């Protein structure tokens, strides 16, 4: 039912294709890359795209095509894991808060509101400034930044689900809270969670690029789309092509996740069934 609907959604399928290509690109980076992304070649600095360097070279003579290919690894890694962290924290916080209610719920949700009131990037920069910029801290920072969205969604679903009679029936049978939450409540809030997760993947790719652009993401010389773009920025006047390709990669990946997210929303929204 779900798959049939989803497969008939052309926009979603485009998104799936784009994402799949992205994942393949990351998985087969060593095969696809024509050069070592880290090899510096002083003789070929800032070249225009050519047969040898398809996307041209950067100011150190590194092959931009290979750097963009390898960059997909870091971008996907960070977006995937930061969304996983956010989902995990958000589900735990939202479910506890919504299920038990009371002043705890109030307190937790106000904290979530406080986190949400900061612009995402600013907060991530703040957290990274405290923790220090490295790959796992970027994951953690973005994870924390996106947690409130998940917590809110889960809490909302839990609030309505915990009043359902099948939850009361389970209580009447003698089941405990943990069993009820894991068996009856969480499985029924997966739909909005999936939608939120796909949308967040897109945001996270963008956020990672921005952080790298600002020098807080993946530490150089490792390539990520953000820092390739950041490096290229200095040479935009001489060699505009340097900025085009990493920018395009970011755009495509974000577009892919957004298309899938929109399609999932359409398919999973019960009001449209």
């Amino acid at each position: 039912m779900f798959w049939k609907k989803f497969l008939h959604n052309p926009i979603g399928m485009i998104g799936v294709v784009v994402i799949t290509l992205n994942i393949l690109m990351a998985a087969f980076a060593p095969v696809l890359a024509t050069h070592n992304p880290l090899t510096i070649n002083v003789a070929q600095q800032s070249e225009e795209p050519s047969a040898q360097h398809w996307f041209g070279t950067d100011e150190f003579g590194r092959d931009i095509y290979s750097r963009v290919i390898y960059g997909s690894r870091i971008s996907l890694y960070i977006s995937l894991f930061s969304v996983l962290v956010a989902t995990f924290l958000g589900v735990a916080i939202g479910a506890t808060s919504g299920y038990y209610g009371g002043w705890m719920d109030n307190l937790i949700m106000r904290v979530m509101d406080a986190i949400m009131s900061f612009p995402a990037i600013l907060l991530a920069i703040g957290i990274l400034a405290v923790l220090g910029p490295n790959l796992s801290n970027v994951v953690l920072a973005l994870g924390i930044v996106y947690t409130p969205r998940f917590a809110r969604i889960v809490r909302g679903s839990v609030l309505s689900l915990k009043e359902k009679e099948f939850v009361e029936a389970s209580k009447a049978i003698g089941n405990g809270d943990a069993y009820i939450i894991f068996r009856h409540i969480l499985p029924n809030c997966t739909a909005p969670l999936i939608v939120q997760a796909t949308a967040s993947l897109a945001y996270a790719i963008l956020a990672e690029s921005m952080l790298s652009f600002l020098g807080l993401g993946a530490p150089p010389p490792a390539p990520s789309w953000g820092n390739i773009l950041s490096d290229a920025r200095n040479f935009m006047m001489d060699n505009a092509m340097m900025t085009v390709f990493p920018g395009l990669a970011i755009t495509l990946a974000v577009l892919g996740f957004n298309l899938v997210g929109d399609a999932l929303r359409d398919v999973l929204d019960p009001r449209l069934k």
Partner: protein
Amino acid sequence: MSLKTILKVEDLTKYFVVGRSLFNSGEVVKAVDGVSFSLMQGETLSLVGESGCGKSTTGRLVLRLIPPTRGTVIYQGQDIAKLPADKMRKLRSDMQIIFQDPWSSLNPRMTVKEIIGEGLRRQPELSRAQRKKMVLEMMETVGLRPEHYDRHPHEFSGGQRQRLGVARALIMRPKLVVADEPLSALDVSVQAQVVNLLARLKRDLGLSYLFISHDLAIVEHISDRIAVMYLGKLMELASKRQLFAQPRHPYTQALFSAAPTTEVGREKNRIILSGDVPSPLNPPKGCRFHTRCPLAQEDCGQLEPEFKLLAPGHWVACHHPLND
């Protein structure tokens, strides 16, 4: 029918606080206010009343699905309102509930096997094969076919779903079943099937029912005794025969006169009550029914009538009962 009391409810009360915020202490909804009754073993006691009178809340309080504000629920000599949580969980299998809405009472993601078998999870001594056998037996008891074993709730009709709910409750081998309007979401033809199923199961398994309903025809069919509820309080409690032959409370009389009858030529004197049920937020002073009672006198608005015994087994809360 043996006369052993299985359940004794005294002064059961539930107040809900609504609209409480930081700057507002909120208002109190007196959903159930001092309800007392007892249930004999093997008996069906019906709880009737209009929507919002607190009958479903009473059912949930009896099972301690929600904690009472005040009062005692004595099940086989133990006050379960004060029982610690772990002891309560052991007692839970003894008392089960069947819900009104067969659509929201079954988890849409579980299969029949999981829904009915859920209660067996807490009996680790059972083997997988034993569990399956018990589930299949229970399915047969409630009239579901073995091929339904792996299906999901959305593949069933309302009546079948309600049978599923019954099976889930009865596999626990309960002694007391609270049936919270189990028929009101079903078609009339299906209602008959489920009513007969409930009656048969009661006979075969020796169950006691607290049957919550607003459908007087069904109540007349299934009950031994009937309690009439209005705005969180019991108005009258008597055997079915006594109550239908001679209602003593004006509200009972009005309620019964509003029920359609199938008897030809039986002239009915319909009593039309004026106005709406007052809000339980601010129930009327004195007798809760006095604002709509056709026979209200001055004292009705002042003093709350006691719930007292008028005749053997016939309890009424009224200052001026009928046929007195």
